[in-house]
């Protein structure tokens, strides 16, 4: 039975190995640790892919056999794939991006540990495990955000930490209320044991609000978003990639599990769905509109990431509608996957630029198309995909979200229209970056791209295009993953 946890075991072992081998290495040899982590991630990814293959037919590998706390269904596997993929790309890119930095052992081990936490968060169906896993992932990233320890990163990390810890407080308080109401920490038991709309109704609402606010901070939904721009801007670019592409998605998986499995009793569903709907509307609008005003690319990407989180939040609102739930959730899942790749890739592209001490202001990217053609091309692909241009991955997932919200009709159609308008707004600021990269007259000289970063970018770009052109398998994967959440 333990073999079901083999991917996690592999990651844990490699993380420990990195920590201990780190102590024995000289500073110059520490690059090896990056390769070691890479190996671990590749092995784990392969194992998860095997799990995915067998889960694709049965949808559920394990529910409660291993432990009451874990459910290894296609949904969990889907997210594990996302996390591992992002971690893989980031680590691959980091081999170049952090070449000149110290503390490589700490960097890679923390990244692996964080990934491990996320993987468990994907499988957890118990409040305790969810909390512990989420915290493992978060605490490791708190430290990562301060990587390099300069003024910017420490400020970024401090803001991230304060808000992160605050959100942990909110989450655990909300969870404590749920536990008190249902007498259990297991989501499935909570679902059956939650009282109806009796005198404890408002406590339930309170618990829900606490959880939404807590995870709202983690996903950087407006009005809980103010840390994200500073953090993504200040942190080292590969770390920002990891935060935006993986850590944020972990919050979504926890939200989905908790709300879909534990809290979708009829008494509550309408309430929180409405709350999510409002949150989604505000989040995407504010994120995209503020992104317009940004002159710094990392900040712009951060705000865009807020906007994109708003798109995913739409699907929570849709759960209360008449639209097919697995279509809605499937749409969200696919968008989480595609956004992880695109946003991670975009931050890695910034990292590639900063390899040559190119800043992240818009002007710094002038004529990047000539200076670092590959990076610029990849960045263009990510940006177009983020904007939702056809034949790129982002289009497919946005299409699904749009379809789901149109299918729901009424108020939800309004969310869909808002999505569309926001998407147009976002196209403006994405296109602006492209314009700077390709159509400016600054004299630059061609530079050789850092090889491994370029490889990471190419893999990400390839995936974006592949999903965009041949989305069939990915669409049906996300749809079945979604339906496995409900089974």
């Amino acid at each position, binding site marked *: 039975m333990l073999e079901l946890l083999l991917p996690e075991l592999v990651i844990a072992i490699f993380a420990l190995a990195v920590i201990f081998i780190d102590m024995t290495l000289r500073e110059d040899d520490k690059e090896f640790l990056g390769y070691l982590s890479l190996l671990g991630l590749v092995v784990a990814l392969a194992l998860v892919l095997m799990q995915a293959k067998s889960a694709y037919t049965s949808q559920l590998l394990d529910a409660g056999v291993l432990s009451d706390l874990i459910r290894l269904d296609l949904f969990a596997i889907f997210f594990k794939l996302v996390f591992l993929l992002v971690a893989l790309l980031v680590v691959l890119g980091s081999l170049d991006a952090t070449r000149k930095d110290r503390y490589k052992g700490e960097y890679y081990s923390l990244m692996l540990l964080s990934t491990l936490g996320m993987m468990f968060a994907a499988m957890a169906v118990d*409040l*305790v495990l969810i*909390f*512990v896993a989420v*915290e493992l992932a978060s*605490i490791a990233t*708190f*430290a990562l955000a*301060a990587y390099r*320890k*300069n*003024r*910017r990163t*420490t*400020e*970024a*990390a*401090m*803001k991230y*930490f*304060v808000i992160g*810890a*605050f959100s*942990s*407080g*909110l989450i*655990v*308080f909300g*969870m*404590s*209320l749920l*536990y*008190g109401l249902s*007498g*259990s*920490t297991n989501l499935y038991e909570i679902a059956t044991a939650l009282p109806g709309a009796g005198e404890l109704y408002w406590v339930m609402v309170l618990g829900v609000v606490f959880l939404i606010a807590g995870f709202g901070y983690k996903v950087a939904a407006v009005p809980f978003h103010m840390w994200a*721009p*500073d953090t993504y*801007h*200040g942190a080292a670019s590969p770390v920002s990639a990891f935060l935006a592409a993986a850590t944020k998605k972990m919050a979504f998986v926890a939200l989905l599990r908790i709300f879909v499995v534990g809290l979708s009793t009829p008494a509550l569903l309408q309430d929180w769905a409405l709350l999510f709907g409002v949150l989604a509307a505000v989040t995407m609008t504010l994120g995209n509109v503020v992104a317009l*005003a*940004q*002159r*710094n690319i990392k*900040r712009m990407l951060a705000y865009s990431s807020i906007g994109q989180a708003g798109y995913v939040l739409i699907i929570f609102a849709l759960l209360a509608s008449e639209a097919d739930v697995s279509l809605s959730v499937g749409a969200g899942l696919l968008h989480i996957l595609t956004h992880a790749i695109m946003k991670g890739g975009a931050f890695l592209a910034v990292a590639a630029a900063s390899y040559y001490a190119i800043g992240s202001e818009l002007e710094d990217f002038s004529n990047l198309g000539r200076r670092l053609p590959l990076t610029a091309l990849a960045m263009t692909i990510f940006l177009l995909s983020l904007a939702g241009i056809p034949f790129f991955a982002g289009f497919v997932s946005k299409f699904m979200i749009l379809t789901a919200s149109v299918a729901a009709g009424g108020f939800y159609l309004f969310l869909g229209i808002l999505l569309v308008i926001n998407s147009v707004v976002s196209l403006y600021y994405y296109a602006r970056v492209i314009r700077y990269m390709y159509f400016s007259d600054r004299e630059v000289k061609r530079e050789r791209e850092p090889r491994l970063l370029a490889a990471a970018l190419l893999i990400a770009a390839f995936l974006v295009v592949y999903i965009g052109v041949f989305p069939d398998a990915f669409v049906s994967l996300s749809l079945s993953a979604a339906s496995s959440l409900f089974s």
Partner: protein
Amino acid sequence: MSVTVFHYVFLAMLLFSIGAYGLLSARNAVRMLMSIELMLNAANINLVAFSSYLGSLNGQAFAAFTIAIAAAEAGVGLAILLALYRNFRTVNLREIKELRW
């Protein structure tokens, strides 16, 4: 007039609110971190109280995990604080504004 779980829950909520207020009003990062500890403790009071009144041990186990996590969080937070202080020579978060556009 006996002590019911409501007393504990209300105390927890009070504690949580004070923590939240502290977090919002503080300028000193150390005070912020302390406010967060208060909030986590509030949750723990809830968990243990429910555990005791419901006669299930899960809440206590949860609280134990929370304590461990809170300690880890405090450790990392203070380490970040130190690194921050070395860079800025202050821990007043309202003065630290490098990251604005």
